[in-house]
């Protein structure tokens, strides 16, 4: 019970921090509300004040608020998928980007962007609209299956195999994306390049609703799995003895992670390293207790991505930096730190 209340305490503190960052982010931007703070304007939007100018309302609600919510949703899901995978593979280097999941999602999404025009008309309308999203999900899922099949034998996952499979998938993805870049037109090329580095600029409430649905479904299944993942650290056999259905747990994590990474890539492009940075920091604070770090990574992922996004759109005004540049800049050193720490055991 004591640990439980400790968890709630940390969850509350981090949620408050997230709210503070969201308020700061809402007030950051090039648009001037004529002396009013963005927070006041948002208050008026919520009250339904009819005296508010259309542009003020649009910037605060459809541009900034939508983008903040998208950063919170995507940051959260990327971090939780990273934490879940690390628990499953029992390795701090297992994240969507490093084992090739993001690359697989990116590849199929890129195919949909460049070649989609040729076969779009033969598909049902609902599928046409979300073709890039569906492709990203399939890409993430296929990569996940491939990584898992190749690196696991007799119920044991070989970490080196897993990372090397990731390297191979990333290489294949890179070469095919390279080919697509070669045959793409100038405008498609710019879309691909920008999209390869990630951006939350295209946030809309419709996308947020879809992401929220994915998040709710995944979290209902994944978040209560902390204890099971703790047991998995003892080894699959021991976990089985403790009454955990190991095969079912693996399947759930694989499907949910692919679903989350796939939908995130589809809406924001490739934003790397969030799934590596967040669990790393949490592990420093709380050790490898998944009952703690799994729910906490849901909030810390949001904190990290929202902060990075607010910087990305305010340091080179009026333009913005692709957010993937910032997260990779943070993630690189942490990746090296993990390698150094685990040098002996690898």
């Amino acid at each position, binding site marked *: 019970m004591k640990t439980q209340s400790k968890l709630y305490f940390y969850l509350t503190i981090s949620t408050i921090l997230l709210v503070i960052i969201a308020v700061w982010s809402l007030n950051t931007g090039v*648009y001037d509300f004529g002396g009013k703070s963005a927070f006041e304007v948002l208050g008026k939007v919520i009250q339904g004040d009819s005296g508010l100018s259309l542009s003020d309302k649009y910037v605060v609600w459809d541009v900034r608020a939508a983008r903040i919510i998208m950063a919170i949703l995507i940051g959260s899901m990327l971090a939780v998928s990273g934490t879940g995978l690390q628990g499953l593979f029992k390795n701090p280097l297992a994240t969507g980007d490093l084992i090739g999941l993001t690359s697989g999602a990116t590849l199929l999404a890129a195919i949909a962007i460049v070649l989609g025009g040729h076969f779009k008309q033969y598909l049902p309308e609902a599928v046409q609209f979300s073709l890039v999203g569906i492709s990203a999900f399939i890409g993430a899922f296929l990569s996940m299956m491939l990584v898992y099949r190749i690196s696991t034998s007799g119920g044991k996952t070989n970490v080196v195999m897993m990372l090397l499979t990731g390297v191979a998938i990333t290489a294949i993805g890179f070469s095919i994306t390279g080919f697509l870049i070669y045959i793409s037109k100038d*405008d498609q090329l*710019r879309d691909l390049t920008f999209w390869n580095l990630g951006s939350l*600029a295209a946030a809309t409430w*419709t996308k947020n*609703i879809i992401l*929220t649905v994915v998040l709710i479904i995944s979290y209902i299944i994944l978040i209560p799995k902390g204890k099971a993942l703790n047991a998995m650290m003892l080894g699959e056999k021991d976990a089985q003895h403790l009454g955990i259905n190991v095969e079912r747990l693996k399947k759930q994590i694989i499907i949910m992670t692919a679903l989350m990474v796939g939908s995130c890539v589809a809406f924001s492009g490739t934003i790397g390293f969030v799934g590596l940075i967040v669990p790393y920091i949490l592990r420093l604070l709380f050790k490898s207790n998944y009952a703690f770090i799994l729910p906490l990574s849901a909030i810390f992922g949001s904190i990290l991505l929202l902060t990075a996004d607010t910087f990305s*759109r305010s340091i080179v005004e009026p*333009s913005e930096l692709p957010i993937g540049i910032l997260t990779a800049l943070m993630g690189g050193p942490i990746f090296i730190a993990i390698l150094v720490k685990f040098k002996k055991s690898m």
Partner: protein
Amino acid sequence: MKKFILAASVLVAVYSCKKEEGAKKENSTEVSSETPKSTHKIVTLNGGITEIVSALGHEKEIVGTDVTSTYPESLKATAKDLGHVRSMTIEPIMAVSPTLILASDKDINPDLMGKIKSSGIKAEVFKQEFTVDGTKKLIAEVAKAIGNTDYQKLNDKIDADLKQVQPIAKKPKVLFIYARGNMLMVSGTKTPMDALIGFAGGENAVKDFEDFKPLTPEAVVKANPDVLFFFSSGLQGAGGNEGALKMPGVSQTNAGKNKKIIAMDGGLVSGFGPRLGEAAVGLNKLLIENTK
């Protein structure tokens, strides 16, 4: 808890739908109340369109432009540079409080287009064709969008300029090289350069593909151009004439052997606006000088 989250997401959905309806209504009243006024605060997102608006005498109404809008130069002081249309976001556009956004269908990114549509700001997206008639049509459409009917003189000027183009007896084969950083692209058919080279009395050296493709040494040798054609900024970035002559394959071509390299201002050459005739005459002169 689950119920609460579900209820909250449904609320958000309903609220955002309501918003859209409201935005549409307000938008329609805003537009009608503005129609009688002849001045706008315009954001132009294409170099050619920017030139048309300026040439029609509305330069002072332009409050923001994209990176390709380099002419007239005086705009730099009065209009905000919003960057490249492919990486532009909506908030900096909203920040200059435009009442009208003018863009071309070719270069605007779809996400930004969606945002502009839902922002409620009046926006016109024009189809840009790289032909003389297409340019005249664009001028007429842009003029209509900003409420100016006095555009015929611009079209007449294009015709008058084009008449000055001198025929070249033996059409020189011209290879346009688009140099951006380390990337070198050559222009195939259906590009502004292909059209302009034709108007100027030359012949595009590459005809076997559309749009721009990366430059390969073999392709350059095969195309065997008589003249290499660059944007001034691109040629400078590629190391000037010296640098261009060292590009792979170039030394094997007529252009390389005779050191025939020309460069023109990128905005003038690719704008396809009121200065189309001027650009064609300029290129025509350079081609004549370099084919003697």
